[in-house]
C-alpha cells in the first residue's frame, strides 16, 4: 500500500532534483577552475549535482517503499492562511516607504486577520489600533528606524 507520506517524499525528491539541476546548470556558466584553484562555479556545480542525485534517491525510494510512515503533518495545503499571510508581507514591502508606518501597520494587521474566517471585526480594529500605537512608539520614536510616519503628500 502506498501512503500519502510516500507521495510527499516523491514530490520532495523531485523538488530537490529540480533545484539541484537548475543550480548546476547556472553554475556551469561560471568559471569552474580546477580542484587546485576552484572557480566560482566549482562548488555549486558539485553540490547541485549531488542534490539532484539525492533528490532522485528520495523520489525513487518513495515509489518503491511499501510501508509508509505515519504523516506527522496534515498534507492539505491551507490556502487561506498561506495567501493572506504572504499578501500581508508583500503589502508591507510595497507601501511602507509611501504610506508611512501608521497606515502600513494598521493595514498589515487588518489584512493578516483575513487568514481565517470568523474573527470578530471589532477585535481586528482594536488590535490594529493597539499594535500601531506600540510600533510607532517603539520603532519610530524609540529606536528611530528609517521610515516615514505618515504618507508624504504632494
Amino acid at each position, binding site marked *: 500500500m502506498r501512503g500519502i507520506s510516500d507521495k510527499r517524499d516523491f514530490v520532495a525528491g523531485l523538488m530537490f532534483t529540480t533545484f539541484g539541476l537548475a543550480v548546476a546548470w547556472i553554475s556551469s556558466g561560471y568559471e569552474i577552475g580546477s580542484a*587546485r584553484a*576552484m572557480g566560482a562555479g566549482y562548488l555549486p556545480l558539485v553540490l547541485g549535482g549531488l542534490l539532484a542525485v539525492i533528490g532522485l534517491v528520495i523520489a525513487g525510494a518513495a515509489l518503491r517503499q511499501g510501508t509508509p510512515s505515519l504523516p506527522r503533518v496534515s498534507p492539505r495545503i491551507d490556502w487561506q492562511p498561506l495567501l493572506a499571510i504572504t499578501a500581508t508581507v508583500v503589502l508591507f*514591502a510595497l507601501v511602507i516607504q509611501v504610506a508611512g508606518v501608521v497606515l502600513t501597520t494598521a493595514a498589515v494587521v487588518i489584512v493578516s486577520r483575513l487568514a481565517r474566517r470568523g474573527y470578530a471585526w471589532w477585535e481586528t480594529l482594536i488590535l490594529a489600533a493597539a*499594535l500601531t500605537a506600540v510600533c510607532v512608539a517603539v520603532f519610530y520614536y524609540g529606536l528611530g528606524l528609517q521610515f516615514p510616519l505618515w504618507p508624504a503628500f504632494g
Partner: protein
Amino acid sequence: MELIDNLVLGFSVALTIQNILYCLLGTILGTLVGVLPGLGPLATIAMLLPISFGLEPTTALILLAGIYYGAQYGGSTTAILVNLPGETSAVVTALDGYQMARQGRAGEALMVAALGSFFAGTVGTLLIAAFAPSLSEMALRFGPAEYFALMVLGLIAAVVLAHGSVIKAIAMIIVGLLLGLVGTDVTSGDARFTFGSSHLADGIDFVVVAMGLFGIAEVISNVAGPEEERKVLGKLGLWKLSKEDFRRAAPAAVRGTFLGSILGILPGGGAVLGSFSSYMLEKKLSRTPQAFGKGAIEGVAGPEAANNAGAQTSFIPMLTLGLPSNGVMALMIGALTIHNIQPGPGVMSSNPSLFWGLIASMWVGNLLLVILNLPLIGVWIKLLTVRYRLLYPAIVVLCCIGVFSVNNSEFHVLLMALFGVLGYVFTKLECEPAPLLLGFVLGPMMEENLRRAMSLAKGDPSVFVTRPLSLVLLLVAAGLLVMMLAPAVARRREQAFEESHEA
C-alpha cells in the same frame, strides 16, 4: 588560577548595569516566548536580531542567549500548568508535571523545575568555563582540511541526532549550503546566482532566511491549525518542597544535569535530546517506574535539569569551534558575523570579554530566572491563556519591520515572504527547515576552507585522508551516515523517537 581570572573577567562584564538589564530583558522575553502559544525561541531571536544590531556585540549576545534559556523556563511552566509544552524540550515535563498539577502540587512541580534548572545552569556554566579554553586551543591548530572535515562531521551529526528523515535533512543542508553561496564570490569577485540584481550582490541576508522560515512560515502553519483551549488548573498548591520530595528530586536533577550537559555538546543535541534521555533514565533507575506518568517528581526534576544543562552546553561548539549545533546556535553565529566577529576558536583570544562575559551572564540569567519567575508566576498564568489569533498579527508586523530595518530595503521583505512560502511548503513535505539554516550559515565557511585546503595540497583531494585528524573526523561522519542508512538502525531510531513522543 586561570579559570578564576577568566570568570572574574566574565563577571566584571556581565555585572555592569547595562548588561544585567539586557540579560533581564532577554530572560523575561524568553519566558514570555515560552509561555505564549505558537512562538518559539528561533522565531523570537530572529525577530530581535535587527534590534540587537545597535547594541554592543557582548550585550547583543547576552540578550539573545537569555531568550534561549529563558524560553526553556517558560516552556516548562506551560507544560506543568496546562499540559501544553511551550517548547519541544518541555514535552516530557508535561507528562509528570501536569499530573502533579492535577493533584494540586503545581507549586511543587514549578519549584522543582526552577531549582533543577538553576542547578543545571550553574553546572553548565562551570563546564563551559572549564572546557572551552582547551577546545579552543586545540581548534586553533586546525588547518583548513581539519576545519572542513569538522564541519562535515558537525552537519552530519546534527542530522543524525535530530529526528525525521536523514536523507531529506541532508538534502536540506545542501540547499542551505547553496543558498549561502549566493552573492559575490570572495575569491574571484564573480557574482553568483544574483540574476543580475544588485540586491543579492552581498548574498541573501541571514535574518531574511531565518525570519521567513521560522517566523512567517510558522505563523501560516499555526493559523491554519486548530485553536487550542488553554485552561489553567485552579490550585497551585504549596510553594515549598517537603524533605521527601527533595530526597527524590535532587539525585534525579544531578543525573539529568550530567546527561544533559554531555548531550548538549553534541551537534543536533541542544536541549531536546537531554530531556528525553533523562526521563528514560529516571524511569529505568526508579524503584517505582509505574509512578511515572502519574506525577513522579523525578520525572520533572531530571528532564528539567537536563534541558537547561543542554541549552547551556550547546554553546560550547558554537563558541569554541564556530560550529552551530542547532538552529538557535546558527542564529547566534549569524549575530556574531553581523557584528563583524568571525565565529570560531579565535573568539576567546580576540574578544575575551565577550566570551567570558557571555558565559558569566548565563549564570546571572539563570539566577534572575529563579528569583523572578516564582513571584511572577501569576503574570505568566495570565499570559499563557492569550489566544493565538490575537498574537500572530503582531508576529507578522514585527518580522516585517525587523527585516525592513536591516537595510531599509523593501526587497528583503519580499524575499522574506518568499522564504515564508518556501518554509510552509517544506513543512508540508516533512522537510525540516533547521538543517537548511545550519547549511546556510556554514556554506561560505566550508567553501573557503575547502578551497584553501585544496590549494595547499595542490589539488590533491587525498589531503583529507592523509592528515590524521581530518581522517578521523571524516571516518566518524561516514560511520554515522552508514549506520543511519542501515535499515535496522534506522528502524530502531524511528522507534526511539516514536517512544519519546508517546512516553
